[in-house]
């Protein structure tokens, strides 16, 4: 079974993606189609930048499966490259559509083979149609497909040979997609006059490496593409599941109207775990025990959503793992001027000799050694999940979805670096209810539970940043590490329902940052408001803010910022 599993699409996906990328300089997303049951055999299907490949092809010997996958992707890639525009079905009959598709397949394959002659060896073995297979339409089509591609194949059928002659005669014009339509249409007329029966519903494209042709055509009002379009819809639905449902309304948080908004429904009240002072910049004094921080249990979501995010950002993840490898590799450091070590430090020796001759006491630290520098580092990532994080970007993703993607990728990066880290999220509903939610604690591994917590994250309410900073700082302070890093990801300035003055909470947050700095905790902020004009510089210090103009790039940027901060 394991040998069988090694030949399935999901096991080969990485190399197949590389294969199509190398040949065509295109990097479509590859998806697996569930293995067929007793349904008709499945074919590759593509469209909208995604190629969907059956998990396994039925009736193909195991040793040919891998070649078949490669042939299938080479063929789909040839379409992506040479089928420049989708065809319009117009008034074409199903048989003509099948024929035009068949000619189009042969056309792109020939163009591909002009560029990559080796593809012929890949395609040909799967063309096994021969006259003995009969003269029903599917057999005729398969024979024609073979005749068009295999120069050594001879077929007694007049129609097949006529098709080949027409196709080869047009060799000069193969670069023009109109060729397929012309030849396909003519051949379809011929078959039509022979009054042969064609069952479009039962027709399966042969040979097996060719796609189902649905990606070639603009879907008609009642498309024969129904089956595959539902797959596409399913894929879309799956994708949107990774995003949270949009909040009921898009009011900004610092509006007094929010005061009447009912507290987050369905969320049980959190356990108060700490009170913190709050700095009032008008009286220049901290109000003691002013805010109450409540711990909320994270609601586990669907872990697949996070795995999906990591999958969606696979190129970013790969780039990151390369970065991480270099970060790890550059860790050994030569320590000079050491009291003990495995080699003499020449410079120190010379200084010692000079001192000796000058009659001074030489410095005994004359050794050098190479040491693997340990990253003695504890990081807490604090995510702002106030209502504004539900805002959608032009691309359709919400800020929260991007925050989660970024946190997931960063978590993966930190886990593979072996750094200690925690991820928390906060929002607030007045000073008595600053909500703090530990997604991953320092002691816990970044495992399925943490991913589920991350997936279940919802955005609501306001941003009382100062209190959250103080609590995150207190958590970090418990970690004994040479360097303690608090990384805040926020999309807007602090606000809350019981505060009217914009400056009040900003000044409080600024005070909190300064308190943490005095305790040796570095606070950095990743700001997500593309519009600019925020108080982040004032709160965190200008050099401690990374403004991200294109919020879409957050998943890529956040781990990079982290690596730069800790390199």
């Amino acid at each position, binding site marked *: 079974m394991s040998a069988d599993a090694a030949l399935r699409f999901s096991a080969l996906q990485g190399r197949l993606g590389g*294969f199509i*990328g*190398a040949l065509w300089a295109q990097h479509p997303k590859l998806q697996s189609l569930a293995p067929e049951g007793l349904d008709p055999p499945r074919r590759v299907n593509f469209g909208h930048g995604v190629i969907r490949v059956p998990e396994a092809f039925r009736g193909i010997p195991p040793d040919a499966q891998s070649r078949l996958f490669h042939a299938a992707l080479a063929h789909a890639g040839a379409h992506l490259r040479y089928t420049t525009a989708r065809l319009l079905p117009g008034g074409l009959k199903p048989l003509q559509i099948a024929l035009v598709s068949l000619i189009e397949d042969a056309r792109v394959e020939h163009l591909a083979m002009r560029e990559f*002659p*080796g593809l012929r060896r890949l395609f040909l073995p799967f063309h096994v149609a021969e006259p003995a297979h009969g003269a029903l339409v599917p057999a005729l089509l398969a024979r024609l497909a073979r005749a068009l591609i295999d120069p050594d194949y001879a077929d007694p059928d007049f129609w097949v040979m006529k098709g080949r002659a027409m196709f080869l005669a047009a060799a000069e014009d193969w670069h023009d997609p109109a060729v397929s339509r012309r030849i396909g249409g003519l051949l379809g007329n011929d078959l039509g006059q022979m009054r042969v029966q064609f069952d479009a519903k039962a027709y399966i494209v042969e040979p097996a490496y060719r796609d189902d042709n649905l990606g070639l055509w603009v879907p008609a009002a009642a498309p024969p593409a129904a089956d595959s379009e539902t797959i596409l819809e399913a894929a879309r639905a799956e994708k949107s599941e990774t995003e949270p449902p949009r909040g009921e309304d898009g009011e900004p948080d610092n509006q007094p109207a929010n005061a009447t908004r009912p507290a987050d429904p369905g969320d049980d009240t959190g356990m108060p775990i700490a009170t913190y002072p709050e700095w009032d910049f008008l009286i220049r004094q901290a109000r003691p025990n002013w805010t109450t921080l409540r711990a909320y249990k994270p609601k586990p979501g669907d872990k697949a959503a996070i795995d999906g995010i990591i999958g969606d950002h696979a190129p970013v993840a790969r780039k990151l793992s390369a970065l991480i490898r270099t970060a790890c590799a550059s860790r050994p450091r*030569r320590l000079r001027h050491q009291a003990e070590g495995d080699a003499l430090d*020449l410079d120190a020796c*010379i200084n010692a000799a000079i001192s000796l001759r000058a009659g001074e006491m030489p410095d005994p630290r004359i050794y050098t050694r190479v040491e693997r520098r340990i990253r003695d580092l504890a990081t807490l990532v604090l995510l702002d999940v106030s209502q504004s994080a539900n805002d959608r970007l032009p691309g359709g993703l919400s800020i929260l979805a991007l925050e989660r993607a970024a946190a997931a990728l960063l978590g993966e990066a930190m886990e593979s670096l072996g750094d200690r880290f925690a991820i928390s999220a906060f929002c607030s509903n007045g000073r008595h209810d600053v909500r703090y939610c530990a997604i991953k604690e320092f002691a816990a591994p970044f495992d399925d539970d943490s991913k589920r917590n991350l997936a279940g994250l919802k955005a609501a309410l306001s941003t009382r940043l100062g209190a959250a900073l103080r609590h995150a700082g207190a958590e970090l302070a418990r970690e004994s590490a040479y360097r303690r890093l608090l990384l805040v990801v926020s999309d807007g300035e602090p606000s809350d329902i019981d505060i009217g003055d914009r400056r009040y909470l900003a000044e409080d947050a600024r005070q909190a940052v300064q308190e943490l700095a005095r305790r040796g905790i570095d606070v950095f902020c990743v700001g997500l408001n593309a519009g600019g004009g925020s108080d982040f510089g004032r709160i965190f210090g200008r050099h401690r803010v990374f403004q991200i103009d294109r919020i879409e790039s957050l998943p890529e940027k956040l781990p990079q910022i982290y690596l730069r901060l800790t390199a």
Partner: protein
Amino acid sequence: MNLLDHRIAAEPYYRPLGGEITLFEAAYASRMPMMLKGPTGCGKSRFVEHMAWKLGKPLITVACHEDMTASDLVGRYLLDSNGTVWHDGPLTRAVRHGAICYLDEIVEARQDTTVVIHPLADDRRVLPLEKTGELVTAHPDFHLVISYNPGYQSVLKDLKESTKQRFAALQFVYPDAALEAEIVAHEAGIGLTDARLLVAIGERARNLKGHGLNEGASTRMLIHAGQLMARGVAVEDACQVALILPISDDADMRAALTAAVAACLR
């Protein structure tokens, strides 16, 4: 000292891609420090050798590494029987005797190390030797060239702004297919048809840059493959040995490249 060892006797082969030779000569005429940017194996070092030969100046190359200290560039005191004796480093030798000093892969060196070139790379053209207290004024022929590959690691390693802004830069890229085939054919001693095939194969690996590979196949790699072919190795094997195996440790990427190479072969 006339740095005889560092003079280049025979012309190193270099096929210009654009106006880089003229530009470099103009920059050399005013001794403007030059930065050569571009991916690995695209001909930066060969270009410097060629220019040193063309200008008739000695060339001192330093391969920078992350453990390099300023003393490795500038020099250090050594012990001898009478006491200590100062020994010039490669940079100081170039400054004193008028050579082109080529610091290869400068980002690899730590940032505090690269600062020593600052006074040399502006109009002062001096090198202060901290340990001896000497201020070495650069020889009129001295010219500073660095190479810099802003690759995927640039997040972790980058030049300081103050270093970057002292240099004029030439961008190097992999040559276009026809030119690259010509270069590969010349350097490897194979026919143009074979060289074109290798370049087409190299193109496949370059398509994967950023999608599994950190860097595409360099011209140097293609030349390596070509050299193996010139010794009678079959194309598949030459590509496997000189290209696919070195470029990635990822089994999937290697399998993908092997399949792509097979597709390119007749």
